[in-house]
């Protein structure tokens, strides 16, 4: 009985110790925000987690998106976004509007139809010059941030809309720039973000 008790106490101590260590470790890795996005060229829905950089003037986030078969053919996409947040307009003490956040993101489409590089010996060098899996996107978002109490677990909630274009759309536009309006190559996405 005593043996059993000692073991239990030791086990409990050990457990609490590791949980403590773990929570410290996880605390460091815990993202500053998580988000859920609709469309925006990285999936019908995508989930993301990100970190604030340079005193919240910039941000880096990882996104995984999915398109279901009956909404556009099944696709899985991974993207890394780099945001620049130059303008913050506070409205009262409850809202912050970020009217124009430039964003850059490479996206990678998984699957056998998509290659990082068209492979030899099938194609001679430069036969198809682009990558079918890797797209490089450029765009901007507008974000409305709703602040909660500073001591709350969820510090703020934001809604955003993001317009983006990619390398191949831009290339096509450039060739047809006299006949195609620039805005036509932009595509939209909308999302919600939770800030911790």
């Amino acid at each position, binding site marked *: 009985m005593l043996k059993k008790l000692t073991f239990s106490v030791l086990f409990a101590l050990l457990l609490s110790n590791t949980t403590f260590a773990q929570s410290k470790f996880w605390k460091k890795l815990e993202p500053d925000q998580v988000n859920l996005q609709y469309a*925006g060229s990285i999936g019908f829905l995508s989930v993301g987690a990100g970190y604030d950089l340079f005193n919240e003037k910039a941000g880096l986030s990882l996104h995984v998106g999915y398109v279901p078969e009956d909404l556009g053919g099944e696709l899985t996409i991974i993207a890394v976004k780099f945001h620049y947040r130059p303008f913050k307009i506070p409205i009262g003490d409850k809202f912050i509007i970020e009217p124009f956040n430039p964003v850059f993101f490479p996206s990678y489409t998984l699957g056998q139809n998509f290659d990082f590089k068209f492979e030899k010996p099938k194609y001679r060098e430069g036969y198809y010059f682009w990558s079918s899996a890797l797209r490089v996107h450029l765009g901007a978002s507008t974000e409305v941030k709703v602040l909660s109490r500073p001591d709350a677990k969820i510090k703020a909630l934001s809604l955003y809309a993001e317009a983006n274009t990619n390398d191949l759309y831009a290339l096509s536009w450039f060739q047809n720039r006299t006949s195609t309006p620039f805005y036509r190559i932009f595509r939209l996405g909308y999302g919600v973000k939770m800030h911790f």
Partner: protein
Amino acid sequence: MKKIILYTIIILLGFGCNSDEYSPNQVFNRKSPSNVNATQIALLNQKTASNTIRIAFSGDTQRSYAETALFVDEVNARNDIDFVILDGDISDFGLLAEFEGIYDIYKRLDVPFISVIGNHDLVANGRAVYERMFGALNFTFNFGPVKFVCHDTNGREYNFDKSTPNVGWLKSNLTLGNGITSLVAVSHVPPIDDDFDPDLRQPYQTLFNQTPGLIASLHSHRHAKLATYYQNGNTGVPFIVTNAIVKRAYTIIEITNGQINAQEINF
């Protein structure tokens, strides 16, 4: 201030109407057309063929939307064309946005248009986009006494695995009868090109030369002045290779009593 936020959201949502995109590689969206070839063939079937059939034949629209629009205006300005064939490389990168961009211009044509698969259309998800938007890669249609046998010859995209062109399918579809007295083969890559499966080059040309009623094989892909080749010397079935829309050129194909004539037009 709540108004400002509300307006911002309304403006953003309004701007985004119908331009939400799941991926540049998605196969379709809410607005994507489907079964375009079947629809266009049905339109063609409503027309009556006169003694001479006249086709505006070209390919390789790729990224050249401005040239494509000029071509459509050019054909609409003439009143002697029965229908148009868009002979592959509709897109450059195999992206939905490209297929839709070209379709939106071609749908302004006053005459029906039939679209054939090109090598660039098979890149990335292009094959699935083409199949959903236009239909099967190998298909036939009739106009008057002529049967057009459209098929995929983009062998390099299948790593020259001897599957493409599908010789078996061709054999069973290159058939006369039921009022059909002439056959015309239509595909993107011509057999003389490096992108044609080298193992099928001879069997393909031999099949065509041995098929009764086959009067010509039409191709594009090479972006060069209209040229006609033969398997042997100057006799047998002509392999007619058109210039491209990107080069602001098309070929007028005239078929009269089983005779075919080709002439390049620049616009």
